[in-house]
């Protein structure tokens, strides 16, 4: 089988480049610059160096002993992306793309952010490399992730609130694209997930594939075999793509992506694209989109800002249709339970996004045999969510 995506950025019928003409030549230039950079030994060496000496890679693989015992089934292993500098896997891509921006001679970077983790990661990489940085964030997300807003400002980034639509990630991406259309000669848009127009889905997956490459070696060493299953949460889908990519060729390994089931199954109450969405075109790419019958994009809801998005990366759409990955949904409530469970049993406070993956693990682990292993991508830590969880539970801090 030919490697995907094809030269036009398609994974089967998904992907492509649906953007204003103004952005087309810059996307071609970006594709070429990235292709050159990834073949350039000096670029690869600098990226590897920063990932190890600055970001803290490789991240460990932890055996979750008490959680495994509590669930009474498969052995649960955690790939500890929460231990990356800035607290989530987002830094892997941010450092890669900011290095690329510098190589392309762009002095300014912009980014969208939902939970704030990508925004913090880009602000961090921009500070490290001396680039100007502006981050767009929905005002609803600014409210629930206030800590990250201030972190970005401390890092020297300008944070612009977006007060349109649902005031979340989708609207922040709209505004980032408008900025980029207007500033494209001096600016690189650091897209935070495996979505958007080609080359972003494949480029971001490649920058995140370090997660899967490390995890493959680690699980073989620590568990002495491949895991039965890998579980990761899916918003745009970058942490999932990063860990899945190394395991896709191993057909015996079940891959499970967990979407935000929110508070109900009606349109507007969740962000589960694969159970409630249909193929559509949003933010430059063809994929599954939550929309009404007129092609108007639906509002979404999730307790987790990072999963609160109406579309999903095109490669996930392809993995879904070709049945290589199974996508499931987990409710706000189940995610909050898992948030507490991991905190109390393992001493790790996970991000609410990651808690969705853990909720599915607590459901499925008891049904697997004790000799089998489940590998969870612990994509981020939950410090940013502490005050929001306290608010939801009526605790005054």
């Amino acid at each position, binding site marked *: 089988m030919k490697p995907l995506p094809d030269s036009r950025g398609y994974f089967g019928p998904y992907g492509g480049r649906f953007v204003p*003409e103004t952005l087309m030549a810059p996307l071609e230039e970006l594709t070429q610059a990235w292709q050159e950079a990834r073949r350039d030994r000096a670029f690869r060496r600098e990226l590897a160096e920063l990932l190890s000496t600055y970001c803290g890679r490789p991240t460990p693989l932890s055996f979750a002993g008490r959680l495994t015992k509590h669930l009474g089934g498969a052995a649960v292993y955690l790939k500890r992306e929460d231990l990356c500098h800035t607290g989530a896997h987002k830094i892997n891509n941010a450092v890669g793309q900011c290095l690329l921006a510098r190589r392309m001679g762009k002095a300014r970077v912009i980014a969208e952010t939902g939970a704030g983790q990508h925004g913090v990661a880009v602000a961090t990489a921009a500070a490290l490399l001396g680039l100007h940085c502006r981050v767009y964030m929905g005002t609803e997300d600014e409210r629930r992730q206030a800590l990250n807003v201030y972190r970005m400002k401390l890092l020297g980034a300008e944070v612009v609130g977006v007060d349109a639509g649902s005031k979340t990630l989708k609207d922040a991406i709209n505004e980032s694209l408008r900025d980029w*259309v207007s500033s494209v000669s001096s600016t690189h848009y650091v897209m935070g997930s495996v979505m958007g127009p080609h080359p972003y889905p494949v480029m971001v997956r490649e920058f995140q594939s370090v997660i899967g490459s490390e995890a493959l070696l680690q699980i073989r060493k620590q568990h002495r075999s491949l895991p039965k299953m890998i579980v990761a949460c899916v918003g745009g889908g970058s942490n999932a793509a990063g860990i899945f990519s190394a395991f896709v060729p191993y057909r015996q390994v079940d891959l499970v992506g967990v979407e935000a089931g929110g508070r109900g199954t009606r349109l507007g109450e969740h962000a589960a694209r694969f159970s409630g969405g249909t193929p559509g075109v949003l933010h430059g790419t063809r994929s599954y989109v939550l929309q009404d019958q*007129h092609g108007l*994009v639906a509002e979404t809801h999730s307790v987790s800002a990072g999963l609160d998005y109406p579309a999903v990366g095109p490669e996930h759409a392809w993995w879904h249709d070709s049945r290589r990955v199974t996508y499931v949904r987990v409710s706000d409530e189940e995610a909050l339970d898992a948030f507490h469970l991991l905190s109390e049993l393992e001493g790790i406070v996970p991000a609410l996004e990651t808690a969705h993956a853990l909720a599915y693990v607590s459901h499925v682990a008891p049904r697997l045999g004790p000799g089998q292993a489940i590998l969870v991508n612990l994509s981020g830590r939950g410090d940013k969510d502490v005050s929001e969880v306290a608010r939801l539970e009526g605790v005054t801090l």
Partner: protein
Amino acid sequence: MKGRLEQAFVHARKRKRAAFIPYITAGDPTASRTVVLARSLERAGADVLELGVPFTDPIADGPTNQRAAERALSQGTTLSSVLAIVRELRFSSTIPVVLFSYFNPVHAYGLARFAVDAAAAGVDGVLFTDVPVDEAEAAREALRRVGIDLVLIVAPTSTRERVKAVRKLAGSFVYFVARIGVTGTRATLEEGLQDQVRMVRKLTRSRVAVGFGVSTPEQVSRISQFADGVVVGSALVQRIGELGDAPELPGEIEALARSFALATKRK
């Protein structure tokens, strides 16, 4: 028969002026008002009408058109109702109509079904803000079968190769974006616009209409000296937003549009 779009450009040229192409968002302030406004624009001297299909995520639009889309969506405007507006307009007008749309509403409607229904409603051209020439093949084929022009966009950032690719699929005119940016009013015009338009005309062998950021009669006059058509959007949309559903809306828009139409005269 040569299409109405083609005829509109020929007609304007014979009268020694550029074609005047006003843009309004369909359903803003209401569907029935859109039909009335279309007639006002025609009386003011519009050669072609650009009708925006409101979308939830208009990434190529500045704040003025974003708010217009929100107003139209709050009225329940959908792609189907925009086609109904065109059908109604056709009882009283033969002005060529170009729909200005994001791709997703058409994708959801179904490309083939949309082409047939749009042609039946009396649509002459369709422009997609987010379908570059690389992705345009299927849309062009579906529209060509029913005699609708696909209007492609060329930008200041487009390479020569890209402009040449546009030539293969272009209909009766191409739309040149005067600005690197989103739609909206601007105080000044880009340097070198005339040379760019000349280049695009040469490489595409098509008529060139210029839009994005054209918002004063002076700008219209300058562009009219070298372009085949001038698109004025946000300046009209802004005024529609200010007036809302007021009784004087059609008269005010007609007067404003006339000031632009008169400026299309070639010196």
